C-alpha cells in the first residue's frame, strides 16, 4: 500500500519500522488517600530530578553534535523544571486536590499551554511546544517508560512517529536510524530540517502513518517522491532496490564533479553558487561543490531570539562564512530582509493588510538607520576575511539604492575614523525582485555593481499572485513568458554596463530553467547546496552557442506550458 506525504529529505530507505504512538503515555487519574500524599510528592520530585539530569546529558550531547544554539533549547527546558509557578502548581494540585502526579502534571501543563497558545505570538507558541516536550519527559519518568527512541537498535530501522521533538532528535542513534516518517510537519518543520542535516531520507506530513504501521513491519520511505510504501511485496521492494541503487549511483557520479569547473560543452563558464541561511550551511555548500555563496540570508541572525543581534555577533557570523569560502569564492550577503510576512517578535511592527507590499526589507532598513548601520558595520569589518559582497533586497527606486549607499558611505567614514580595516573595493549589488526595478534595470545598472534576480518574489509581484495561495497557484509560473522576458531584459541591461547578473530564486536550480537562463546570458546561478552538482552535470552537457538562439526563440512562445514542453523535447531529451 502506498501513502503520499511531503518529501522532507532526499533518498530511499527500505527497512523495518519502529513505531512510536502518541498514546503510549497512558495513566489513570486517581484520588489519593491522605497518607499517600507524601510518597506521591516524593515520587514527583524524583521524576523532576531525573528529568533535570537527563536534560544535562542531552544538552552536552547536542552541544557536541549540533552546536550551542540547539543546546540552548534544553537549557530553557531545565528552567521550566525549576519554575515555581509550574512545578509549584503541580505540587499544590497534588497536595490540595490529592490527585496522582500524572494527573496533576497534565492538568497544570494544559492550563499553561492554553495561556501560551492564546497569546497570538509565534514565540509564545514555540514556548508551548517546549513546555509539552518537557512535560512529556516528566510523564515518561513518572510512568517508568523507557523511550523506544532511546533504545539501542540492533539493526537499521525506519522511525515512524507522530512528530520528532527536539528531545527525540537529540537522542536518536544516528548509526541505526536510516530514515523516518512522521504524521505531522512540513518541509520547514523541525523534523524535516533535522532529516536534511542528518542526511537521512524522510517523509513528513503523513497524517496517520503511526496507525498504518506496526513495529517490525517492512516499510519503504521514498524521500525523493514523498511516498511511503506500507508492507510492500517482493516486486515493489525489488523495484525500489533498483531505484535506490540508481540514486546512489547518480549521487556518486555527481560527487565526481565536486572539483570540476562549471563550464558548458563548448567552453562557456558560469558560476554555480549556493543559497545559505547560516554559517554552518557554508561548509555543506563547499562539500557540494559550490563556487561561492550567491545568497546568504541574514535573517537567521535576527529570528528565533529576543533582541537584535549585536554588531559582534553579526561580525562573527559573516567572518565565519567568509573564511569558510576563502578568498576565491565570493559570498553575497543580503542585508536584512525582514518585515511583512517575516516577523520578529521583538520588532513590534503593526499588522499589515498586504505584508508583501508593505514595510519590509530595505524599506525598513532605510527607516531604521541604526539597525541598518549595525549590520553594515559588521559586514564591512568582516570583508577583509574573504570575498564578501553586499546586496540590498527589494530595491524599487534609484533613490533607495542611493540612500542605502549613502548610509554605507557614512559607515565607511566612521570605520576609517576609528582606524578599523575593511575592504575598500567591496562590490555592492541589489536584488531584482520588484517589477519596477526590472523595468529600470538600465538605470540601476549604472550604480549597482551587480544584480541578483530573486524569482520567488519577482514572480508573485509580476503575476499578482500570492505564492502561498493554492487557488491562484496556476499563475505562479516561473516559465510564463512575462517572467522570462523580464529576466532577459534585466540581463541585457546589466551586461550593457559591464555588470554581472545572478539569480538566487528556486528557479536557478531547476533542470528546465537552467538551459534557458544560460542561453539568456545569466552569469551566476545560486541554488540550494544539494542541487549544485546536479546542475553542474547538466551544464557540462549543454551547448552555450546554440542555446543563445534557442532562448531567443523561447521568448516568442505564448505560455508556460508551451515553454516547458519545448525545453523538455527540444533540449533535455536530446542530451
Amino acid at each position, binding site marked *: 500500500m502506498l501513502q503520499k506525504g511531503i518529501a522532507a529529505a532526499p533518498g530511499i530507505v527500505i527497512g523495518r519500522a519502529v513505531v512510536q504512538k502518541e498514546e503510549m503515555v497512558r495513566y489513570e487519574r486517581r484520588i489519593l488517600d491522605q497518607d499517600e500524599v507524601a510518597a506521591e510528592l516524593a515520587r514527583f520530585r524524583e521524576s523532576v530530578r531525573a528529568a533535570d539530569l537527563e536534560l544535562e546529558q542531552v544538552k552536552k550531547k547536542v552541544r557536541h553534535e549540533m552546536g550551542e544554539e540547539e543546546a540552548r533549547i534544553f537549557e530553557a527546558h531545565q528552567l521550566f523544571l525549576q519554575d515555581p509557578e509550574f512545578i509549584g502548581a503541580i505540587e499544590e494540585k497534588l497536595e490540595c486536590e490529592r490527585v496522582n502526579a500524572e494527573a496533576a502534571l497534565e492538568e497544570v501543563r494544559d492550563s499553561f499551554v492554553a495561556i501560551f497558545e492564546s497569546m497570538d505570538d509565534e514565540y509564545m507558541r514555540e514556548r508551548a511546544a517546549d513546555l509539552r516536550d518537557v512535560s512529556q519527559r516528566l510523564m515518561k519518568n513518572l510512568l517508568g517508560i523507557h523511550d523506544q527512541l532511546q533504545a539501542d537498535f540492533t539493526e537499521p530501522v525506519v522511525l515512524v512517529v507522530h512528530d520528532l521533538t527536539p528531545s527525540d532528535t537529540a537522542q536518536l542513534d544516528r548509526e541505526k536510524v536510516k530514515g523516518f516518517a512522521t504524521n505531522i510537519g512540513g518541509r520547514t518543520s523541525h523534523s524535516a530540517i533535522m532529516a536534511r542535516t542528518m542526511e537521512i531520507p524522510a517523509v513528513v506530513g503523513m497524517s496517520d502513518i503511526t496507525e498504518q504501521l506496526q513495529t517490525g513491519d517492512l516499510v519503504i520511505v521514498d524521500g525523493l517522491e514523498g511516498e511511503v510504501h506500507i508492507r510492500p511485496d517482493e516486486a515493489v521492494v525489488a523495484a525500489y532496490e533498483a531505484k535506490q541503487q540508481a540514486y546512489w549511483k547518480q549521487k556518486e557520479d555527481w560527487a565526481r564533479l565536486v572539483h570540476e569547473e562549471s563550464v558548458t560543452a563548448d567552453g562557456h563558464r558560469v558560476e554555480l553558487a549556493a543559497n545559505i541561511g547560516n554559517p554552518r550551511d557554508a561548509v555543506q555548500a563547499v562539500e557540494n561543490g559550490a563556487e561561492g555563496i550567491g545568497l546568504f540570508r541574514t535573517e537567521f541572525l535576527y529570528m528565533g531570539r*529576543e533582541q537584535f543581534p549585536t554588531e559582534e555577533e553579526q561580525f562573527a557570523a559573516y567572518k565565519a562564512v567568509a573564511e569558510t569560502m576563502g578568498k576565491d569564492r565570493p559570498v553575497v550577503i543580503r542585508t536584512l530582509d525582514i518585515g511583512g510576512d517575516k516577523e520578529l517578535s521583538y520588532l513590534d511592527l503593526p499588522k499589515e493588510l498586504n505584508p508583501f507590499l508593505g514595510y519590509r526589507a530595505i524599506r525598513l532598513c532605510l527607516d531604521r538607520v541604526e539597525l541598518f548601520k549595525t549590520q553594515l558595520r559588521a559586514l564591512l569589518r568582516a570583508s577583509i576575511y574573504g570575498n564578501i559582497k553586499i546586496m540590498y533586497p527589494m530595491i524599487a527606486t534609484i533613490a533607495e539604492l542611493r540612500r542605502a549607499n549613502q548610509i554605507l558611505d557614512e559607515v565607511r567614514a566612521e570605520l576609517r575614523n576609528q582606524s578599523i580595516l575593511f575592504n575598500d573595493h567591496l562590490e555592492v549589488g541589489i536584488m531584482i525582485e520588484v517589477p519596477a526595478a526590472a523595468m529600470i534595470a538600465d538605470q540601476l545598472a549604472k550604480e549597482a555593481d551587480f544584480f541578483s534576480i530573486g524569482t520567488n518574489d519577482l514572480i508573485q509581484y509580476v503575476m499578482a499572485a500570492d505564492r502561498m495561495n493554492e487557488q491562484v497557484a496556476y499563475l505562479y509560473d516561473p516559465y510564463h513568458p512575462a517572467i522570462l522576458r523580464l529576466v532577459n531584459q534585466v540581463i541585457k541591461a546589466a551586461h550593457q554596463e559591464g555588470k554581472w547578473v545572478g539569480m538566487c530564486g528556486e528557479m536557478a536550480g531547476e533542470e528546465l530553467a537552467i538551459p534557458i537562463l544560460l542561453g539568456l546570458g545569466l552569469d551566476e546561478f545560486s541554488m540550494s547546496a544539494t542541487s549544485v552538482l546536479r546542475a553542474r552535470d547538466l551544464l557540462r552537457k549543454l551547448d552555450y552557442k546554440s542555446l543563445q538562439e534557442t532562448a531567443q526563440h523561447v521568448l516568442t512562445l505564448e505560455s508556460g506550458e508551451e515553454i516547458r514542453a519545448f525545453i523538455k523535447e527540444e533540449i533535455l531529451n536530446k542530451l
Partner: protein
Amino acid sequence: MLTKTFTIQNPTGLHARPATLFVQKATSFPCEVNVIKGTKKINGKSIMGLMTLGAKLGEQITLEITGEQAEQAMEELGKLLMSVHG
C-alpha cells in the same frame, strides 16, 4: 516590603532572554519577589509567570520585594529592568 516602579527600557520588552536573566537573578536572592503589571501580579522567580506578563518596551512594572536582602535585590533587579541589552 519594598516597592518600586520601573519603565521597561529593553526594546524587546521582558521576553525570554531578559526574562531568563531576571529569573536567574531573582532566584539567587532569599527574599520574595513579586512583579506587578496593571492588575496582574506574578512570582518573579517564575519564568512562565514573567513571560505571560508580556511586558513591552515603555510599559511600567512594579517590583514588590519582601524579606532578606530585599534592598540589594531591588537594586540589581531594577538594573536589569532598566538595561537596554539585558
